[in-house]
């Protein structure tokens, strides 16, 4: 599904170039549940952003199925991303001034969905994540676990093939984290490819493959 070859990413400080990723090679098959691990500052988030096609400042080769993402114009990359990828963030990043239901609708509003279709998707998703009775509440009123559940629901709603999650349980206690991980497993069983970054061995245990990053390189894999 994903093929990365010699991916390099550097941040510039004045005249200095600071390489965060140096020649990363990585292959991920459709339907996998992958955990990326590594010490702080290793470049995990940076890699995830590249996978998520947010970042445009890298060099190397990146194939998404048969599409060469590195050759796409920013606009086409955005389209590729909107069609295929959903995101879950560590601090949820729900929009505080919107209700649960409205938060779920945000990704749909940036894609070509008709009104009726949007409403139906929102209804289905609320149902599926058992959030229907909370749909008119504002996120800040909810527990962290629930908020992240909404985050996952939001990442899912536009039916992406791939979900990227950067420390999705970093702000949650273990019971809540467990729920999220179980949700990931469920989604994965239903066919969604999942790549998560985590520091927790327990969370990593839910996935079927672990990629270790150290100093900008993939240094080993556990299956």
């Amino acid at each position: 599904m994903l093929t990365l070859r010699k991916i390099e990413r550097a941040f510039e400080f004045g005249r200095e170039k600071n390489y965060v990723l140096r020649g990363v090679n990585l292959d991920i098959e459709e339907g996998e549940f992958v955990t990326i691990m590594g010490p702080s500052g290793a470049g995990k988030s940076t890699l995830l952003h590249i996978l998520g096609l947010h970042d445009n400042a890298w060099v190397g080769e990146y194939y998404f199925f048969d599409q060469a993402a590195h050759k796409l114009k920013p606009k086409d990359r955005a389209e590729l991303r909107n069609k295929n990828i959903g995101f879950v963030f560590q601090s949820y990043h729900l929009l505080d001034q919107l209700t649960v239901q409205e938060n779920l609708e945000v990704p749909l509003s940036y894609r070509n969905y008709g009104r009726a279709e949007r409403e139906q998707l929102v209804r289905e998703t609320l149902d599926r994540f058992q959030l229907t009775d909370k749909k008119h509440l504002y996120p800040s009123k909810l527990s962290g676990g629930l908020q992240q559940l909404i985050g996952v629901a939001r990442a899912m709603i536009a039916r992406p093939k791939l979900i990227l999650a950067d420390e999705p349980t970093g702000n949650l206690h273990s019971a809540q984290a467990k729920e999220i991980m179980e949700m990931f497993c469920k989604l994965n069983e239903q066919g969604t490819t999942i790549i998560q970054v985590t520091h927790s061995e327990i969370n990593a245990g839910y996935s079927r493959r672990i990629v270790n990053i150290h100093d900008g390189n993939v240094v080993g894999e556990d299956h």
Partner: protein
Amino acid sequence: MIGQDLRYGVRMLAKHPSFTLVALLTLTLGIGATTAIFSVVNAVLLRPLPYPEAERLVYIGQQFRSGIAGSGEPKFLFWREQSQSFEAMACYSNFGGASGNLAGGSEAEFVSGCRVTEEFFRVFGVTPALGRTFTKEEDTPGGATVAILSDKLWHRSFGANKDILGQTVLLNDQPVTVVGVMPAGFRFSSNSDLFIPMKARLGAHSNPNAEVVGRLKAGVTIEQAQAELTGIAEKYRTAFPQQMQVGETIGVKPYQEMFTQGVARMLWVLLGAVGFLLLIACANVANLQLARAAARQREIAVRMALGAGNGRIVRQLLTEGILLALIGGVLGMLLAVWGTEMLVALLPDGMLPDVVAVGVDWHVLLFVLCASLATGILFGLAPVWQAKQVDVNTALKENATKGGSVRGRLRGALVVTEIALSLVLLIGAGLLIRTFSYLVSVAPGFDPNNVLTFQVALRGERYDTTQEAAAFYRDALDRIRVVPGVENAAVINRLPLDWQFNMPVVFPSSPDQFNSVQFRIVTPDYFRVMKIPVQQGRTFTSADDVAAPPVALVNEAFVQRYFPKQDIIAQQLSVGGVKRDPMRQIVGVVGNIKQQSLDRPAPPMVFIPIPQVSDQLLATVNTFTPGYFTVRTTVEPMSLLATMKKEIAAVDSRLALSRVATMKDIASRSVATQRFNMSLLGLFAGLGVLLAAVGIYGVMSYAVSERTQEIGIRLALGANTRDVLRLVLRQGMTLTGIGVAVGLLAAFGLTRLMQGFLFGVSASNPLTFIVVTIFLILIALVACLVPARRATNVDPLVALRYE
């Protein structure tokens, strides 16, 4: 400590140049413009006249149901004799021979004089700088011919020579002895060069061409004086029944109102406009401070965490606020001084009464300064009262979203206010611009290009008879016509667009019914000089002289009014009744000519050839409106002025030219008030919009920085550049929309107050409202676009990094 605060304050201002610049701009414009216009308004409307105990001065006049009017000299004598309420009462008039050609000074010149009664100077509480005022004997018929000079004339024509007292000068060929000179500071409603005694006679016919002014006795109220005068009016009616009209009585009002009634309404509108501008400026300052407060929330939280007490932080913020305010205040003051001068220079002639001197009003300046300073300081302290609510820890960790949204709403409300106020200003200005452009597009009925005009007053014994005057005009015109660059020349007693001169006209069918029409005496070529079209019949020729059958010309408005269906050429009229003027054959009809102003319909008009005017009628005409020469040129009209002086002097060296102007100037002067109103309100509207644009720009910039993270999230969730642009613009345009809605409502209500200044456009003219609204929305859009574009550059990587 203070020194340290100050140093830190300067550094803060220097480190945020755009904030400092915008804040200073706002303060300067707000303080400067507000003070300048308020100084003018204050001088005219609010400040007492520059006379001792001016509040005791009252204007007294014939009171009709339609309003108060001037009065006659004999009536005045009766009023003065009968009344007890006044310490002194005086009458003055610009008519009746006080103006004219003055000889005896450095050169022959035209002076405008004022005939006054003996107590005139006592009423105003002035004493002459040199010599004395008039005695009772001098102010009675047959008394000595004496004069008091104005300081200006004394300097201009007599080199401020103190020996002038007791000397004789020639006024319209009459010897007059100078008995006094007024002090330099004495100003008076009409711009008079000299004063002569009125010598009024009781029981004479009472022409209402004089004004009466009184000084109330101490402790007497206007109401008491009014009650007494109402009784006196009835006594006069009994004594001279034929001189009192039905419903006529005597009215009293504060003398100050005489000066303000013409301009008061517009000045109040301008004052309102300037109030709006001040509000906009204050809203802007508040907005800026709130924005900065938000930006400094963290800094202040840190300082508090490090142990700074509230007092310490308040002092720091105050120092900065006051520093800013002081710089803005000084710049504003400079603008106020300069702006007041500009305004006074811009004022059309006659709009501001001569009696008031306008300077920057320091009270006003202080008030405006305090208003904007208070706003700035009050809102500058926002971070302090916010810091009290938000606990230090959360403020340090994250931006205080809760306080932020309250503040956001406040800032939004301020912007809505600014937009609404500036829309009202803009619509007001738009209506005046439409009025003005409509006005200048009105055809005056003549061709004002390349016409030189000047007045020559024929006064004194040499021009007692019509034939003497006609001979002078003939000789002068013959000389002028052959001057190179002159195409043609003529004489008329009143120019177009230069007020009016009425006479009663009667028709043979009803010889007792007087019809008041505009009356002109002319030489034959007048219509050719002014290029006034002849619609029917003929104009005058040199054959229409005293020996020929009496003739008259009328204009279209005259035909419309009096003979809409008959053959006009068959009709006759007489000016002032057959006892004074023969029945005249109407021989032609000319086009309408705008007389009072471009926005009023052309009045009915009658023209008579000068040689056919009776001596008595000519004397009357000359008293009020001495003849004007009109000269059509093929060259720049003013370039011929020196030649004109020479040619007039060649015929009679004792005559002076006055009121020199091109017809074009006169036309332009006739719309000077409208131009002034338009420019001023336009200026305010422009400033208002500028400030409002700055305001909305500030709010949106701040909103964008506040929403950076949200924008990052939305980008991560699939939003593209256009979505982000739309997001920010929607926020800005929502504020704009609310502001516009409020502004439109307010404008519908407020522009009605302007109805009287509008012409050719209604106070709720839809086109103006629409165009102006679109204009303001576009401005707001541009102001939002800059921060919106910045929003599209948000990098989700950066925005989402701080987890």
